[in-house]
């Protein structure tokens, strides 16, 4: 029997699928616009900051809204196949469904990293232009690097979480609803509840901007925040992959 298909061929196939859909480019444009404009605005209204990382933090505010677009993008990458029936062709050409999902995840995650890191750099640039910090905002400052790095990681993990929910639920409406519920509503609701239980639960709820969100039930360190978001993303993805492999189409 011939050798198996190399993984890079699957990645190439998934990239062809993604780039040949208009929704990809709409989501990309909207993400750049929302986060870029939000960054410029956030930096503009922050006249001065005591430390460079705080100045950059204000400029990154736009990610809080922009990640809505990223969630839509990642969910549609999977549920679009089920909605249209394309999944029949995909699963017939690649019967090893876990491998297929992994290739799709690589493409979506790389796209998230590329866009988010470009935007993070733009936000850093905006902060440098518009927010006064004594000594400037050097890109070599450890606090600045941490802020930008954590934001790019958080955005990408959000995308992976949304993609995993897509594989799990298969329907655009369902996956988008659950994604928004978990990522955008849970924290504010727990914060409003102002209970100790809410605080305890809040520790294990994924946050969009990991420690920098406007409405957090409880402040955590960025390390714990990334760990929580990462765990949600991995757990959802694995569950999605297992169900994908075992369910009929």
């Amino acid at each position, binding site marked *: 029997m011939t050798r*198996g298909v190399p993984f890079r061929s699957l990645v190439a196939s998934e990239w062809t699928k993604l780039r040949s*859909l208009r929704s990809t480019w709409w989501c990309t444009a909207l993400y750049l616009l929302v986060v870029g404009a939000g960054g410029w605005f956030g930096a503009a209204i922050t006249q001065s900051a005591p430390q460079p990382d705080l100045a950059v933090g204000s400029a990154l505010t736009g990610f809080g809204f922009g990640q809505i677009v990223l969630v839509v993008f990642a969910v549609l990458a999977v549920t679009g196949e089920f909605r249209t*029936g394309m999944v029949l062709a*995909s699963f017939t050409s690649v019967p090893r469904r876990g491998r297929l999902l992994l290739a799709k995840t690589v493409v979506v995650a790389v796209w998230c990293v590329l866009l988010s890191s470009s935007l993070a750099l733009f936000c850093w640039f905006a902060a440098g232009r518009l927010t006064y910090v004594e000594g400037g905002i050097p890109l070599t400052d450890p606090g600045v690097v941490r802020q930008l790095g954590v934001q790019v990681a958080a955005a990408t993990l959000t995308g992976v979480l949304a993609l995993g929910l897509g594989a799990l639920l298969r329907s655009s409406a369902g996956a988008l609803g659950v994604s928004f519920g978990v990522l955008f509503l849970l924290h504010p609701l727990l914060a409003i509840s102002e209970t100790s239980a809410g605080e305890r639960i809040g520790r294990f709820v994924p946050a969009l901007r990991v420690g920098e969100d406007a409405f957090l039930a409880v402040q955590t360190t960025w390390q714990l925040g990334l760990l929580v978001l990462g765990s949600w993303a991995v757990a959802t993805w694995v569950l999605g992959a297992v169900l994908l492999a075992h369910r009929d189409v």
Partner: protein
Amino acid sequence: MIELRSLTKRYRSRVAVDALTVTIEPGRVTGFLGPNGSGKTTTMRCVLGLTRPTAGTATVLGHPYRELARPMRRVGALIDPRARHPGRTARSHLLALAQSNALPRARVDEVIELVGLESVADDRVGGFSLGMGQRLGIAAALLGDPDVLLLDEPVNGLEPEGIRWVRGLLRVLADEGRTVLVSSHLMSEMEDTADHLVVLGRGRLLADLPMADLLGAHAAVRVRSPQAPLLASALQRAGGHVELEIDGALKVEGLDAAAIGDIAFATGARVHELARITASLEAAYLELTGDDVEYRAAPR
């Protein structure tokens, strides 16, 4: 070669495929027939690993489909005309499928030309007619130049010229030694296409036989003569089974046209019409599946 061994698929209380055991041989076109809902599509989905059988096995070229390393090189499938994203162009759709099996990019242009979609290759497939969609599906099935082809209702929605083209294509593919399984719920579609028939009814195997056998078993000759009673008794004496048609013609089973002509000549009966009844194929099919139609209009 496709081998099904006691293949069974149950959906809650409904049995879609019921202990189906059959082998689809290479080098011929096998027609996969049955009324709507008889389990043809479910069987094909089981073969392609899209649906897990409740019991039994389905193998292609000796392996379960999911274990094939580069499945498109071994098996080409047209399973559902919806199996594409309407927002993608025909070329992008085929390129993504080709890449997923590490097939050369040039193959995409080849199959586009083969199915005659050159002029619309860069249009979004959402705007395609049913016939163009079928051609795109056939192009996808042929991408990997596979040894086995499974086509679910491939001529559905095709114009007469397209139907002729598909028939010619299937013939060529089978003559090259490939395994070709084509499903249809219409017997008439199979008449000029298939060499062998596998007939399903309510998920069970009703028949697995060469087309010629089915034709032979139900062959009849229509003969018209002004001296019908005289001829009818002569034919019956010769061992024919004779029925009187509404228009006064005789329908004869058990004797071929040449024998009937000779008997008429010996009897001195003039013959005004003598014809083989080809519609017997459709009748044979109806006879086979009559009791096994899943969805039937209520009699009024």
